[in-house]
């Protein structure tokens, strides 16, 4: 177990190395001269050349990469061209709302998907089955953005229970924080609910026909207990793998949600920085997001070993 954890942690290093190269390339090989874009169309060639020198853009690409990367290793992601603030502190300032969104929507996601999947499986042989099947079929085929818009219109505009914009940090009161973050988190989560509920339901239906379920029934265990102790617990294992990608995918969703609800998070900072051609910030954020992605998947892997003793004791 410890061995596995250490091995898994070490494997993050090459991944992050490759990620940094790719991030750097994407930003630097995108067509367009950053200095020109920053200074605007009327700027003189001298001014552009000055700025290029200042930003180090006149150096060979590999030198630029080396300079940037040796900074990154020490935890220094550079300085914003726009605000002259360090990128690390910008990310730190904006991470609170993004983290809140991700954490809360993960909770909402699981709180809806798990009971829905269990209910579908538990009621599969009753008169409710066709009703549930058609409702879930409807749920899966509804476009998520439509549902999200509906939610915003419903609970933000028609019944103005929740604000449709703005953010209050947790430190300034849990009530106000929750009030502002609940609707966007819900919208963010609803997009992924179908994926997780379906995966869990399918895994549970797979598990229902396994020999060990037959054993449990033959022991005379109550059907409800068979479902929870045996079917559900085993179905969690395959579902967990999907959960990693899903939670990481929520991070991508925050970019849109933050813009939509004007929440000052990482996503909004990224969009603003792209508009401002603030390359050090863009680079830093993309690298940071990639880092979170890797980290979430690492967590999920460790969770996986916790759920599956066959891996834990290998």
């Amino acid at each position: 177990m410890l061995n596995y954890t250490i091995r898994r942690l070490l494997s993050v290093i090459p991944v992050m190395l490759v990620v940094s190269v790719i991030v750097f390339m994407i930003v630097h090989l995108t067509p367009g001269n950053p200095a020109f874009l920053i200074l605007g169309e009327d700027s003189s060639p001298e001014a552009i050349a000055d700025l290029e020198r200042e930003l180090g853009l006149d150096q060979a690409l590999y030198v630029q990469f080396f300079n940037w990367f040796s900074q990154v290793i020490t935890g220094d992601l550079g300085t914003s061209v726009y605000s002259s603030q360090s990128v690390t502190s910008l990310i730190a300032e904006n991470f609170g709302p993004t983290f809140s969104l991700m954490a809360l929507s993960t909770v909402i996601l699981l709180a809806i998907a798990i009971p829905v999947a269990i209910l579908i499986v538990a009621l599969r042989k009753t008169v409710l089955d066709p009703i549930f099947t058609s409702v879930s079929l409807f749920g899966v085929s509804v476009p998520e953005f439509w549902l999200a818009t509906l939610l915003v219109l419903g609970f933000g505009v028609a019944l103005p229970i929740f604000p449709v914009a703005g953010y209050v940090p947790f430190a300034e009161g849990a009530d106000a924080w929750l009030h502002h973050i609940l609707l966007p988190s819900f919208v963010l989560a609803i997009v992924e609910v179908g994926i997780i509920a379906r995966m869990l339901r399918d895994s549970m239906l797979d598990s229902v026909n396994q020999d060990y379920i037959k054993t449990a029934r033959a022991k005379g265990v109550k059907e409800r207990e068979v479902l929870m102790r045996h079917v559900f617990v085993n179905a969690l294992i395959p579902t967990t793998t999907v959960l990693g990608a899903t939670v990481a995918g929520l991070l991508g969703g925050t970019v849109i949600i933050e813009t939509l609800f004007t929440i000052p998070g990482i996503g909004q900072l990224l969009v603003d920085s792209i508009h401002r051609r603030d390359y050090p910030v863009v680079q830093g954020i993309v690298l940071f997001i990639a880092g979170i992605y890797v980290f979430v998947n690492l967590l999920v892997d460790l969770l996986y070993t916790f759920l599956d003793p066959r891996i834990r004791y290998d």
Partner: protein
Amino acid sequence: MLQVENLHVHLDTPGGLVKAVDGVSFSIQKGETIGIVGESGSGKSVLAHSLMKLNPEPPALYPQGTIHFEGQPVLEMGKTELRKLRGNDIAMIFQDPMSSLNPVSRIGKQLIEAIQAHQKRPKQQAREKAIELLEDVGIADAKARMNSYPHQFSGGMRQRVLIAMALASNPKLLIADEPTTALDVTIQAQVLDLLKGIQEKYGTAILVITHDLGVVAHLADRILVMYAGKIVESGSAEDIFYRTSMPYTWSLLRSVPVIREGGPERLIPIDGQPPSLIDRPAGCAFEPRCPFARDACRQVDPPLEHRESNHSAACILSSNEFEEQKKQLEGVLTT
């Protein structure tokens, strides 16, 4: 103790209605050991599962026949009654010990669950009982093994754990569906001895299902031979082995590997495939593969009839006719 009367079990599959069990009757007395033998696909498992109504429904249907356990009609039992029957009165161990234990749950937990399903015992007591059960089936260092997961056991050990689990509530009948098929030969004998020992110690009736005649020869007081969802011959082990009265049983006996001195093992497989259980042929189901078949066999499906005291067979040939024909055929085959 257990009476099965004209039982029919159908499986409603997309390919058609599979008549997996097609009019089976037999009974089991207290403490008796019965063996059911037959090729793969003859309906043995479906029959065994029916005895505690364990076939998944759908696809299983019980259109005809009854099962009574101590006078109670099993097929008419509701959820709660079935739950009380399963594991408590009738317990079952399955074909594949590798997949029959929950892989993510500790052995001890699974045993305790079996105990607490029928006995109101506090956790600690249930735990002690679980350790006793493990010791009973010959698991060394039982106390420590309680915390192991199934994958940390070998196949034979897992089958022992499953047997321990089945014994949790002292069942009156233990159904063993191919308990040794998935195991190594040396382990097979150990598991069979264990079952025999349990029978002697607790007086549990055992229904052992197998396609291996060696297994039933070792264990059973009475043997039922099953073919295409029907019982085609039944009798004592002597009846079946030495007074064989039905061509299918005869073929089955000949298909058992025999080690001859100086030669490799010889085995005469039964030609052809078992019939489809969806469209049963009109006559005897064994007719296409039967070396003794005659025209009449295609018209009538011979019922199971008494031959000697407790020996029955389903074949249009009388025991004497069959004996003669068999001698002729064996004469031809050995020359």
